[in-house]
């Protein structure tokens, strides 16, 4: 990937939308980046196929006005991101241009901006000392980025072992200053700065091992944490028809999840939704640190009206940034909305290249592309023994809301948690509309995860979850019977069974993403509420008529919802709970 002196150049030989054929005068390599010169504007493009002396490139911008014989310069490298302090709190486009540095209201073709700040001073503290033997990813020092210890590492491109010759003393430095000098095996001196580059399509592997995820990652969303938990370093996806709440759910997770860093990849979705993050995150507090949410967040915005090819790149840009922070021993959560748009970008290009289409005209290798991408997430032990993780949750927007389509099916094979949003639940405003029974978490079956629950939540937790699921299943069964036979066509205890499931639905599953308190529910609170609803389930009540059952449980639900809306164990919470107990006592049989 080193630059050679004679860079290959080329000339435009054909144009079909953003697919351009370039006649080249020298060697090029697959995925190499080039710049097409359009009357002084440089359009960035990537080689996606080579045929003889013609390179097929996909242009990351509009090709309007491009002409045959326009000149092309190849760069010798693949699409790379710049890694270094200053990534946090930034708003990048899919190619890591800093959107805030761009001039004007409209995006200009060919405008590129520095993702980092060359002149900013960072407070550097050495972590390595002369004589240390280091490899790619070893920590040489750290700077404080917002509140996070940002490790300055041996560049990931370095191969083999190096010996530290010197590390600069504590002080303020710029990203391009040399902060360490190392010797390679042959004794050659190499200067290391705080910045490095890495090709986005290549996973960063600077870690020792990648065990199966085994810890819970709290999202603060009850139906996820309690019923379908995602593990730290795990993968999950949220398919759902339009308007069922994918974005609201992802935003909620991004606000509350117990992660050090959040990367939001807005991939081919609405600009106004990104604006919502821009507007809210600098104001909202991170519940765990009290800092502003924006301080731990990086946004990659390639909204639906931005160039389609860059949309595909955007998820890789986001993932690579995640891998960089994971190598610092941090807990990264990455969210992408929506991965279907990325798949569609692949489809548009594949069609233009007249490749043999797979199902629904998606490229044949779509499943492989998706599973490769998901496999970059994970919990890792770094070479120095520390651990880091990337938990990844993507949304999927299935055509016509039908889950039997290629993107959903391919993702289902790759992701371990499945959060199916149901149109029916969304229609009846039962948010988040995650179907509790169709959805699953494979992690909940991992023995190491179960062990983690037993140790960290409570010994009976796995049984409680199973019980809650059973109650929901039985509730659904009797609901069907009541529908067919009518309210008075079934025994009263059917109504009781139905309503006990409704209590779980209203109190545990449903959660108001727009309420300050209810929006986020920490694990100890989830545990408390689950115990409460299960206690109610186990309580025996007596009723004369089915109407009594309904109106009784409506009161129970209302009271418990009030609890959800109150600060945990606050006066208001306790008062509501007391009232709840009074209501329960009315119908309780000894």
């Amino acid at each position: 990937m080193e630059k050679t002196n004679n860079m290959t150049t080329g000339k435009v030989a054909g144009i079909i939308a953003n697919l351009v054929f370039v006649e080249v005068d020298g060697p090029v390599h697959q995925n190499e980046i080039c710049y097409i010169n359009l009357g002084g504007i440089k359009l960035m493009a990537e080689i996606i196929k080579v045929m003889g002396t013609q390179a097929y490139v996909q242009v990351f911008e509009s090709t309007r006005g491009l002409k045959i014989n326009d000149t092309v310069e190849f760069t010798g490298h693949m699409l790379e991101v710049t890694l270094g302090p200053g990534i946090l709190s930034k708003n990048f486009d899919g190619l890591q241009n800093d959107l805030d540095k761009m001039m004007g209201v409209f995006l200009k073709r060919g405008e590129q901006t520095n993702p980092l700040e060359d002149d900013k001073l960072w407070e550097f503290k050495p972590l390595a000392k002369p004589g240390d033997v280091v490899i790619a990813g070893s920590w040489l020092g750290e700077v404080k980025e917002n509140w996070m210890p940002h490790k300055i590492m041996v560049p990931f491109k370095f191969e083999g072992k190096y010996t530290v010759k010197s590390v600069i003393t504590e002080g303020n430095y710029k990203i391009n200053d040399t902060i360490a000098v190392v010797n390679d095996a042959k004794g050659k001196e190499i200067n290391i700065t705080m910045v490095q580059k890495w090709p986005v399509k290549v996973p960063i592997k600077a870690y020792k091992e990648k065990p199966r995820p085994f810890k819970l990652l709290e999202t603060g969303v009850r139906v996820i944490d309690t019923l379908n938990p995602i593990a730290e370093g795990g993968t999950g996806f949220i398919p759902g028809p339009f308007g069922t709440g994918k974005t609201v759910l992802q935003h909620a997770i991004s606000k509350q999840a117990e992660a050090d860093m959040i990367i939001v990849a807005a991939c081919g979705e609405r600009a106004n939704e990104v604006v919502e993050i821009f507007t809210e995150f600098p104001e909202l507090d991170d519940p765990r640190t009290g800092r502003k949410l924006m301080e731990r967040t990086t946004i990659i915005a390639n909204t639906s009206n931005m160039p389609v090819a860059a949309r595909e790149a955007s998820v890789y840009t986001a993932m690579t940034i995640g891998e960089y922070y994971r190598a610092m021993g941090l807990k990264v959560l990455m969210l992408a909305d929506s991965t279907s748009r990325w798949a569609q970008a692949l489809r548009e290009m594949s069609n233009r290249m007249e490749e043999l289409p797979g199902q629904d005209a998606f490229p044949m290798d779509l499943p492989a592309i998706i599973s490769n991408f998901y496999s970059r997430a994970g919990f890792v032990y770094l070479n120095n023994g520390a651990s880091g993780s990337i938990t990844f949750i993507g949304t999927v927007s299935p055509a016509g809301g039908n889950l039997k389509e290629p993107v959903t099916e391919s993702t289902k094979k790759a992701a371990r948690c499945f959060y199916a949003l149901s149109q029916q639940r969304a229609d009846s405003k039962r948010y988040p509309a995650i179907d509790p029974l169709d959805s699953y978490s494979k992690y909940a079956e991992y023995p190491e995860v179960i062990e983690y629950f037993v140790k960290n939540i409570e010994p009976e937790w796995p049984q409680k979850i199973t019980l809650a699921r059973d109650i929901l299943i039985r509730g659904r069964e009797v609901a069907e019977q009541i529908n067919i036979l009518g309210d008075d066509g079934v025994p009263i205890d059917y109504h009781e069974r139905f309503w006990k499931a409704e209590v779980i639905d209203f109190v545990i599953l449903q959660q108001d993403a727009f309420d300050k308190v209810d929006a986020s529910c920490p694990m100890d609170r989830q545990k408390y509420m689950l115990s409460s609803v299960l206690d109610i389930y186990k309580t025996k009540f007596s009723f004369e008529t089915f109407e009594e059952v309904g109106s009784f449980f409506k009161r129970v639900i209302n009271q418990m919802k009030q609890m959800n809306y109150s600060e945990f164990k606050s006066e208001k919470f306790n008062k509501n709970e007391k009232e709840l107990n009074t209501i329960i006592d009315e119908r309780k049989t000894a």
Partner: protein
Amino acid sequence: METKAFQKIYTKISQITKATCSLKATNIGYEEMAIVHGRLAQVVKIVGENVTLQIFSGTEGIPTNAEVLFLGRPPVLKVGEELSGRFFNAYGDPIDGGPEIDGEERQIGGPSVNPVRRLQPSEFIPTGIAGIDLNNALVTGQKIPFFADPDQPFNQVMAMVALRADADKIILGGMGLTNDDYLYYKNVFDNAGALDRIISFVNTTENPPVERLLVPDMALTAAEYFAVDKNQKVLVLLTDMTLYADALSIVSNRMDQIPSKDSMPGSLYSDLAKIYEKAVQFPDGGSITIIAVTTLSGGDITHAIPDNTGYITEGQLFLRKDTDIGKVIVDPFRSLSRLKQLVIGKKTRADHPQVMNAAIRLYADAANAKTKLENGFDLTDYDERTLKFAKDYSEKLLAIDVNIEVDAMLTACWNLFDKYFKPAEVGIKQEFVDKYWPKN
């Protein structure tokens, strides 16, 4: 379409398909416009010296020796204050007999707004229609379609919304409009004395369908001129986007592209998003709001056109004929404005969200009661009351002929609550009940 002296004229077409012509030509820009045999065309493919042109009005009758003249620029619109009150065709040429526009040329289909330069939409657009203002409030910078059956009066509702919305400019993009509907819009705008703030780009059913592909970009280029250069609040009406998408599929079929679902091109999502995402609130006060119409076939919203639209827009509005009152209403169940929470209870009275939810909940209870009735089960007293409430609610609020202010809508709701229910049955926060429940 003036021509310049030095322009080279080609006369040797090598290939003609239903939608395209190809010829050998040099120094041609991608997406450049051309005139082929007097018809407008655009470059869609260049391979070496071979240039393929899409002919908007079709290739019928084009001879192989037709004159081909390249215009050296992509499609443009001349912009200026003079656009106001004028009617244009899909190419931006006047069709109202008035003079040519003498303004600055702007390329249509221009770049996107940098997302960090957008402002969060926050300005309420009152329309007087309670089915919209009360339950599905619209906000400047929003994009929202009517999902309507072809026989529903969506053009009337759109015209009404447009005239009542307090917009500085209303830009109509008509695609496949029947001549009657075109004249309807013209009349309504004229009668309202609003012509001077209305600009129309119209492709009627009498025009070739592929031409309509230019209409949204024309309308939105004009919109950007007024919203950015003049900081105005612009409302863009696009009707009917289904016919626009049909034109896309015609082109992609003729160009032998591999169709995806419902024989739509694989790029349908991106194509529609490019249009709808032009809706924006600018920091300097200007805004573009898009209200569109997507006609459904057989009410099927899983068809690729409404489906992709739903994934792009910020909600959707459904019209429905309420047979109980014999009027068309805005369906409160299936309609949704996703941006309403940015304004209701904030720009409108604080009780708005709760009143809205309570009324819809009671209306839903009425729907359940109705099902019970149809299935032969007995109704409770509460069921009976919800049914009566639903009829009044539909008549006084949901019907599209309602035209009142939001406060009056809220008052109407409170009066209906009082007429049929006890406060406990309505379930609104006590402080609002204390304040607004009618005291007799």
